[in-house]
């Protein structure tokens, strides 16, 4: 059996793993990344990137459809159509391009990428089954970056008919009736896209609100838009199973209902991938269903690290990437630690929601500035939504920044920078924001909080 040695062995080439691999390589550490699928992980292959591609295509198609009849812009268009197979091919092309990119970046950093399934023998030894056979890799430092998988409902086991987000992003036909179980961001993003592509979408959520982790103010513009798009929402409803003709059975306060469905998409969350490849035998300390880590992502076993979705919420690519950098630098002897003040989160719903830092609470004050008073929003025919700042009344320290609105995902950078730099309201209010942009609203929100908004 082939045996290899390295300083750092990373299992998983998702955003956490491959970034850790690049950084470790940059720092001169002899590093191997093992990946069973294509490099890039969920994010690049069956998550962030493909979903954004489909959302874009759906938006474009939906826009085209609005030009069929009378419209304010005076554009006329005859029956636009979409070749969804072609759309998917385009989407896959982006993923492939990025796969290749990741492979190239690892190579450039002199980090070896081994295609194969890893199983852990002990904290320093890993067996990898590749197309060429088995090999043993011995390492000084082991980094677990195995990610997460869509969760299944016992009453709705995955099948051709009941699918997860992975399959939903690879459909070659737009389903006529799509039932979605779970009103979190994944279900909403795919559901909205499918609705725009022409599907008849029904979303079933157990909570009394979609996106239950956010407050009602942030969610309302999304709910309004879903209704305009003809999406049916069943709130406080529970999925009970599938009928013989494929319909989704749900129980609501009004009793049992059946929802016709060509496909049932289950998006109730994601579970960490920590079983089936020997992690359990390491007997690592757990934090609920996730692996417990400290501020350098070290687990309870010496020289074994964990990053990304297996370490818990928020399960976001950019968090995993930041962790990957910290682990690589820590192994290289640098004093890096997790000291982030905030992890930004974006829902690519319509309109988009971006949140950074604290949401409103009894201890904080907030100010909210609507896009209805923003010129750029008007020129884009999207005046729904707002920017909100959460701040400490005494020190004027900005504790949180949120927005809901068309295209506000691009404000995530300013928001995160503001929070990490410990900006005060005055810092933001006194920074010139370019006109005419949606970003001006951020400055106006700070002005508003300081009691002297200029444009409202």
């Amino acid at each position: 059996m082939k045996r290899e040695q390295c300083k750092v062995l990373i299992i998983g080439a998702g955003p956490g793993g491959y970034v850790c691999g690049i950084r470790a390589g940059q720092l001169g550490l002899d590093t191997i990344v093992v990946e069973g699928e294509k490099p890039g992980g969920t994010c690049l292959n069956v998550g962030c990137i493909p979903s954004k591609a489909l959302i874009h295509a759906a938006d474009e198609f939906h826009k085209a459809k609005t030009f069929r009849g009378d419209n304010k812009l005076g554009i006329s268009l005859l029956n636009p159509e979409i070749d969804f197979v072609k759309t998917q091919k385009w989407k896959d092309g982006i993923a492939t391009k990025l796969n290749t990119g990741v492979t190239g970046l690892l190579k450039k950093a002199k980090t070896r990428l081994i295609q194969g399934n890893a199983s852990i023998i002990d904290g320093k030894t890993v067996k990898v089954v590749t197309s060429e056979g088995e090999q043993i890799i011995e390492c000084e430092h082991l980094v677990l970056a195995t990610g997460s998988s869509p969760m299944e409902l016992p009453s709705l086991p995955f099948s051709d008919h009941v699918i997860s987000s992975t399959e939903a992003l690879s459909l070659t036909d737009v389903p006529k009736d799509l039932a979605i179980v779970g009103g979190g961001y994944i279900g909403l993003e795919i559901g909205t896209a499918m609705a725009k592509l022409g599907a008849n979408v029904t979303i079933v959520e157990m909570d009394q609100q979609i996106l239950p982790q956010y407050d009602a103010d942030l969610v309302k513009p999304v709910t309004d838009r879903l209704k305009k798009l003809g999406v049916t929402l069943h709130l406080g409803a529970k999925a009970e199973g599938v009928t013989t003709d494929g319909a989704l059975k749900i129980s609501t306060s009004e009793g049992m209902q059946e929802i016709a469905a060509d496909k049932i998409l289950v998006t109730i969350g994601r579970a960490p991938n920590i079983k089936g490849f020997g992690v359990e035998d390491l007997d690592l300390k757990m934090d609920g269903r996730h692996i417990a880590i400290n501020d350098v992502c070290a687990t309870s076993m010496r020289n074994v690290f964990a990053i990304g979705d297996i370490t818990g919420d928020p399960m976001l690519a950019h968090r995993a990437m930041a962790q990957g950098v910290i682990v690589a630098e820590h192994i290289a002897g640098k004093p890096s630690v997790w000291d982030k003040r905030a992890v930004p989160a974006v829902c690519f719903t319509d309109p988009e929601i971006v949140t950074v830092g604290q949401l409103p609470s009894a201890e904080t004050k907030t100010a909210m500035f609507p896009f209805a008073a923003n010129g750029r929003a008007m020129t884009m025919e999207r005046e729904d939504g707002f920017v909100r700042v959460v701040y400490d009344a005494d020190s004027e320290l900005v504790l949180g920044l949120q927005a809901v609105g068309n295209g506000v995902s691009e404000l995530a950078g300013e928001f995160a920078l503001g929070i990490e730099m410990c900006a005060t309201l005055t810092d933001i209010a006194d920074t010139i924001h370019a006109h005419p942009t949606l970003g001006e609203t951020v400055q106006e929100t700070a002005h508003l909080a300081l009691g002297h908004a200029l444009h409202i």
Partner: protein
Amino acid sequence: MNILAIKLPDVGEGITQAELVEWNVKVGDFVREDDIIAAVMTDKATVEIPCLYDGTIVQTNGDIGDSLAIGSDLVLIETEAEGASVEPDEVEQSTPEPAVVEEVKKPAPAAEKVVSVVEKQASTPSTSAPAMPRAEGAPVLASPALRARARNSGIDLRLVHGTGPAGRITDADLDQYAQSPSQQNGSANGSGKAKREGTEEIKVIGMRRKIAERMSKANANVPHITVVEEVDVTALEDLRAKLNSERGDKPKLTILPILSAALSRAVYDHPEMNAHYYDEKGVVIRHAPVHIGIATMTDAGLMVPVLRHAEAKCLFEAAQDIQDIADAARKGSANREQLSGSTITISSLGPLGAIVTTPIINLPEVAIVGVNKIAIRPVWEGDQFVPRKMMNISASFDHRIIDGWDAAVFVQKIKSLLETPALIFVEA
């Protein structure tokens, strides 16, 4: 509505001016009759000035430390009360020159007001270096770049005091911490001790200013001659112990009443020592009564309450009086009588009394006797060393009036009285 003036009342006998030491009101304050509006200080006492009317303060005259003329307008008050109305000054509140008395013999007011002005750097407060650690779990406000810098320097940002907006830690804060880390982080320099930066400006006003003036006047004008002599106080201490053990209800005797008695006895033979010298008039006034100033430390500073007619007091009376006047001085309740009129002064620091001191004359007196601490020392007595209770006295004299010879003779006289205490009580 009337605008009436509240004038600075005559707060002491025969004085023409008083130093403003405290404002209790500011322009715009509503005050009631008998509210205290300010405090002024004369040579001997601090006096609070009550308000005479209900009304609103429209003008205050003078800054803390200014000398105000008796009878000048202290404040103007807008009131319903009847009286001769006055016009507020057109000038800004910050330039209340009219009420300030120019003292002819003194240098410019600015130099007079503040004896030693040291530059204050507001940007480097002396307290910021050894910063308080943050509470467990409290957020550290610092930019990512600064956090990285701190990590690379091995500095725990939780220990760094932030001076930026909202308590944000700035690069300067980190610089300062790196130069002078607190005890919690001794690794950044060898000693682990904080280097302190910055200065603090303390305005020299009130008592302290008075003391400063008197001291510099005495030291500048009077050529001092200081004579130090050692005194064997074994017999005196034995006597004192005996008297104290049998004192009953009487106050405990310290060395001061005995020394006062000795001084009273000594100046009977040396009347030139119990005198005031008025150099500008060219006259020395010798006093028959012996009023002994007792230099006393108070919270406000050095005061010299007076033991009056020490020559006519028995030891326990003197002990009681010294205790009373010292208490009064410390409490700030001493009256003018208790604080003036001394003819000669004793300066004693008790157990802190050192070996030698160089007392400064309490003008216009001509002699001051400093008492140093008592210690058991070996003394050669013919064929052997014996342990004796020894005490030095350090006496200063106005050398313009007192010659060295006379000073030495006077000190020898005191020594002789203290070493053979019975002599103190022998009729002169």
